[in-house]
């Protein structure tokens, strides 16, 4: 894509994103009720076994249930069997609830994803499609039966049955169902962007012939539905690494706990000879199977183990709420790792519509003559720029009475970098980049006036785009196309810089204009007079240094770059090729959203890390609660620094804490840890204080409080 194009029909919604209507509206009602049911369904061992940490709890629950029925199942325990049953029964109940809470967390996240998916699916209702067969006859088929490559005819007032490309006809389409933009969009074949249509949108006028570009269930919306529902969710690399760590920790604690009874027995033999048989019995009871399972469950990282999948699903969900379709969880995580962001100037950094602000004469022509030439050069140009030139020209009295049928419009091309009009009398009127027009004039044997360079520089210094206009071999003047940097971007780029992300602006403009805009917007670097090839070579050179690159794009010639980038976000208004090459599609077609996606990606990783740290840090307090109380007979009661009432009370309190902390953290898992755009060190400092130090301290307080409430003596 070349920004030098003065005629780029990019439609960019404007105004603060917050105020934009987000459709589809998601219905969250009844999620919790359904999640409650799902919590029980997920007790199925075939489901639980997928999560090693929770599977250990599952097995533990069964075993504690067995020793509730028969406390002496695994050898005689010298303690009152009724008391044993009460203790073991309580442990069983709490473990059962621990499982339910973990299932509930996952079910709520899935439920929210499903709700999101349902509303997406609502746009996907089956319709009757008019399939055009090879012999030209039309057959009515269900939209789900359409295959890639099929051609369908869509009539005014009906739904477009599948994602596709317009191959014939012109029509306006209401895309509000997916983008929230109420203004209809004109679709026609051949044009880069306006030819792509999305299934579920509605044709308002005329009729279109469309070639289907995706099989049913393979469209973007379908992929998104599968992702937010969690059905197709594959674990991301970070999640896999974390699962490994949690599994290893679980194995470590399995070994630790499994060896405790032998140690306790050894000590008990000593205590029985030295002190009393009662003390020895006490010690043995402290190492009973139910108590050991309690210790194990308290130590293994159930908190993060129970919330891990919920965090992942919720991350995808947050992306979906942002009206962005991600094709994989990996892409969302990669957002957090982005080092370099490549942004188009037009539409991303500045408002897309550059407007003519001034005509600057470079020869001694009257301003009216200049306005007339400008008007004539733009008479076939229907882009916002072209329209604004005509409007300014008309204001300056430049309107010319012209029979359009006698004239010929010359389309803009990236090669010639100019457009214009050929009149019936043989006059060639052109407007375009200053270099291109200079070349055009010279080729016609004309002279380039000296005043053109000062004018060109003046416009460039103002950050505007200078366009030269000429008639045959004479350059008449410069059109100043004013470009306005979007407000608030500077701050956002500052934030990105603090996060360690470098921003590179790409533009087809000349160096001076580019540097002015770059400075005004506060990007780190810019590439002027960029060609589509430049974009991909910038990405490659950044990647060769090991950097992860994010970019947005919409045109077909962006597709290779979108595919090359680690995070490629295509605009929904973009072409089908761009959308397929990208790993995310922004339904609002708002390129600045890339910045928010980075925050979401980081938030996802932070949430996972914070809860892991919290979960492991909790173990310190749990150890201090359980070990000194169950082995008080060994004389280590002084380690019971919380002053818990008894072994029973300590075990139950630790387990209740362990269970309750899961639902207590569900909101945090779903919402994500608050992310601030500050440096990594500041983030670490803050989060280690809250989740690391807090994770050590909090359970001491909570377990003590639960112990005070418990009825044990």
């Amino acid at each position: 894509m070349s920004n030098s194009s003065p005629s780029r029909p990019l439609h960019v919604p404007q105004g603060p994103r917050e105020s934009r209507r987000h459709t589809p509206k998601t219905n969250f009602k009844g999620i919790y009720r359904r999640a409650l049911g799902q919590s029980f369904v997920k007790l199925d061992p075939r489901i639980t076994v997928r999560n090693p940490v929770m599977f250990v709890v599952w097995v533990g629950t069964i075993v504690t249930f067995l020793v509730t029925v028969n406390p002496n199942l695994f050898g005689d325990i010298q303690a009152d069997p009724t008391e044993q049953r009460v203790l073991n029964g309580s442990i069983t109940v709490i473990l059962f609830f621990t499982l339910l809470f973990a299932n509930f967390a996952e079910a709520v996240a899935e439920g929210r994803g499903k709700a999101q998916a349902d509303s997406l699916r609502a746009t996907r209702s089956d319709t009757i499609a008019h399939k055009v067969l090879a012999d030209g006859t039309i057959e009515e088929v269900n939209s789900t039966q359409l295959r890639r490559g099929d051609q369908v005819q869509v009539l005014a007032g009906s739904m477009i049955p599948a994602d596709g490309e317009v191959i014939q006809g012109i029509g306006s389409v209401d895309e509000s169902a997916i983008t929230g933009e109420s203004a209809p969009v004109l679709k026609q074949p051949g044009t880069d962007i306006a030819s792509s249509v999305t299934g579920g949108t509605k044709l308002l006028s005329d009729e279109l012939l469309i070639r289907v570009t995706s099989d049913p269930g393979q469209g973007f919306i379908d992929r998104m539905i599968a992702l937010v529902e969690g059905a197709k969710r594959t674990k991301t690399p970070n999640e896999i690494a974390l699962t490994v760590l949690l599994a290893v920790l679980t194995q470590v604690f399995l070994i630790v706990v499994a060896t405790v009874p032998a140690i306790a027995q050894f000590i008990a033999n000593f205590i029985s000879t030295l002190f009393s048989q009662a003390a020895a019995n006490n010690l043995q009871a402290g190492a009973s199977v139910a108590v050991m399972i309690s210790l194990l469950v308290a130590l293994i990282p159930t908190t993060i183990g129970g919330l891990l999948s919920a965090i992942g699903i919720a991350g995808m969900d947050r992306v979906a709420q942002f009206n962005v379709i991600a094709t994989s969880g990996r892409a969302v995580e990669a957002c957090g790792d982005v080092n370099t962001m490549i942004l188009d100037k037009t539409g991303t950094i500045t408002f897309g519509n550059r407007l003519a602000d001034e005509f600057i004469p470079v020869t001694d022509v009257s301003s009216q003559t200049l306005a007339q030439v400008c008007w004539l050069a733009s008479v076939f140009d229907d882009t916002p720029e072209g329209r604004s030139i005509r409007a300014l020209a008309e204001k300056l009295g430049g309107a010319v009475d012209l029979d359009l049928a006698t004239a010929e419009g010359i389309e803009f091309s990236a090669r010639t970098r100019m457009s214009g009009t050929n009149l019936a009398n043989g006059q060639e009127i052109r407007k375009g980049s200053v270099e291109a027009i200079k070349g055009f004039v010279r080729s016609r044997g004309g002279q380039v006036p000296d005043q053109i360079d000062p004018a060109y520089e003046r416009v460039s210094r103002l950050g505007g785009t200078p366009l030269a206009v000429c008639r045959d071999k004479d350059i008449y003047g410069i059109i100043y196309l004013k470009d306005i940097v979007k407000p608030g971007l500077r701050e956002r780029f500052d934030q990105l810089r603090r996060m360690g992300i470098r921003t590179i602006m790409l533009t087809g403009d000349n160096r001076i204009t580019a540097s002015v805009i770059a400075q005004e917007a506060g990007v780190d670097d810019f590439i002027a007079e960029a060609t589509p090839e430049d974009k991909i070579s910038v990405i490659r050179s950044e990647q060769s240094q090991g950097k992860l690159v994010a970019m947005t794009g919409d045109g077909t010639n962006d597709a290779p770059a979108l595919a090359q980038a680690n995070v490629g976000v295509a605009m929904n208004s973009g072409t089908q090729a761009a959308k397929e090459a990208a790993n995310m599609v922004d339904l609002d077609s708002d390129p600045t959203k890339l910045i928010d996606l980075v925050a979401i990606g980081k938030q996802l990783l932070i949430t996972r890390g914070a809860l892991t740290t919290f979960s492991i840090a909790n173990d310190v307090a749990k150890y201090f609660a359980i070990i000194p109380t169950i082995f008080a007979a060994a004389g280590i009661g002084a380690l019971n620094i919380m002053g818990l009432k008894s072994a029973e009370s300590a075990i139950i309190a630790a387990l209740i804490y362990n269970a309750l902390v899961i639902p207590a953290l569900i909101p945090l898992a779903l919402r994500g840890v608050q992310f601030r755009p500050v440096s990594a060190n500041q983030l670490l400092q803050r989060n280690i204080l809250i989740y690391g130090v807090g994770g050590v301290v909090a359970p001491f307080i909570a377990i003590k409080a639960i112990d005070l409430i418990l009825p044990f003596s």
Partner: protein
Amino acid sequence: MLQGWIQIAITITLFVAISPLFGGYMARVFQGQRTLLDPVLNPLEGVIFTLSGVRDRPEMNGWQYTRAVLYSNIAACILVGLILFNQALLPFNPTHLNSSAATWDTILHTLVSFVTNTDQQHYSGESTYTYFSQFAGLGLMFFISCATGIAVAIAFIRGLTGRPLGNFYVDLTQAITRILLPMSLVGGVVMLAAGMPETLAGPVVVPTLENPHISQAIALGPVAHFEIIKELGQNGGGFFGVNSAHPFENPNGFTNLLEIVSMVSISAGLIHTYGAMANNPKQAWYIFNMVLIIYIAFVVVAGINEYNGIPGINQLLGSSQPNLEGKEVRFGWAQSALFLTTTTGTMCGAANSAHDSVMPGSLFIALFNMFLQILWGGEGTGTAYLFAYVILAVFATGLMVGRTPEFLGRKIEQREVVLASLLLLLVHPIVILIPGAITLSFPEVAANVTVPGFYNGIFNPGFHGLSEVIYEYTSAAANNGSGLAGLGNSEPAPSALWWNLSCCVVLAIGRYVPIMALLLLADGMSRKQSVPMTSGTLRTDTKLFAGVAAGVILIVGALTFFPVLALGPVAEAFAVL
């Protein structure tokens, strides 16, 4: 008391001051830069490399390096095994030890123990092995085992910093020729001058002072050269049974100082070697200081415990006396406590006092030291462990900055987490707690000695007995080699067979599984593309991160062994109070 703390402070200051020099020198050696000894060693190494066929120094990957470690170590075992099994036929046997001086299982245990740089000794040197067995057999092991450790550390550092791992045989040779041999030569002469014997003559028989009619044989031997590499290489296997408490192995305060400094120097220096090779001396200093602070804290805890002495005895005496049971008076509480903390922290395993007699608080420190293995850790492996801990800390906390965790610009992913957590979290519980629990459950196998009225089994019952069993396996697993005694682990106790064989397994797993994991970890890291540092990257060269790493190290170390520590030294401490 002040004098004791001053002795401790001087020793620590000394090695803190020389470790950057050592580290810098080692970095020069292994980066192939010019060093002072080049004129002598270049031709010598040229001959060695040509003869051994590694002249082209082919680069090795992780598996190849691991295999080379194993092959060379197995070869050393076979060679030294031939010496030990046939020592009666070999020269330098003034005490005429015959082939039954050591049983096959004791020799096997000795071989595994020495080749793994552990030097756990289920025997007394003077009555089991001939001079030749000691200086030719075990002496060879001293060099090979610690050079293996250094080579692994260097390969690990190379990998972390994105370089190929190098060639094990070249690294092994250079560790010996350029680091261990020159230092041992100088150190041996100093030891000799400080009063250690170096002789091939047999024991001296002299009448005792108390009763001139009773004579006593005083064991001698080529001790001075043996002693320096014992400490420098963190081997710790004593020439005599009582190790560095023996007046010929450690005659005075000066040799004690030299021994402590020798055992720390290379491990502490390697942190600076990392700094030089990673081109980040600042980070090396932060990590060095983190280790130093924990180390000093541990020394202080042990020192206070020993200084305060045993409450019950102090009560009887009516005054406060340090705990001097099992200590050499010439060293006192301070140098004994410092030696204890250093020898268990560095995986040296030499001892200048009876570890069995230290206060429970000091025993806690000794055990915790060996659980962590990084204060300053084993020769080479300690430094590698340290950075593996750093990687684990980066992974555990690095996600909290919102990026895939990276260390030195290289992403820490599934493979790294698998290897680091296997290495740091899983190996120890498997080889310490499982054999420990088996031994505790079947005491009749462990020791068939009945102490009337007490538990039939391990010599000491209760908390201390538990500590002894755990200490034995921890010492083996961490390749430390010191022991608590109180176990029937040496001949002629019938239970020696169980201890020898079970410790062999623990020793080998505790050494080679982590080495393999370290090398594979480094290999993987070296192949990763490094990502440039930005302000969004978690910086590992800050005070904050050093603090976080310390927290992760202490918590991870404590979590695995909390129950054992609580029922062992902690319960004993409460019982002693």
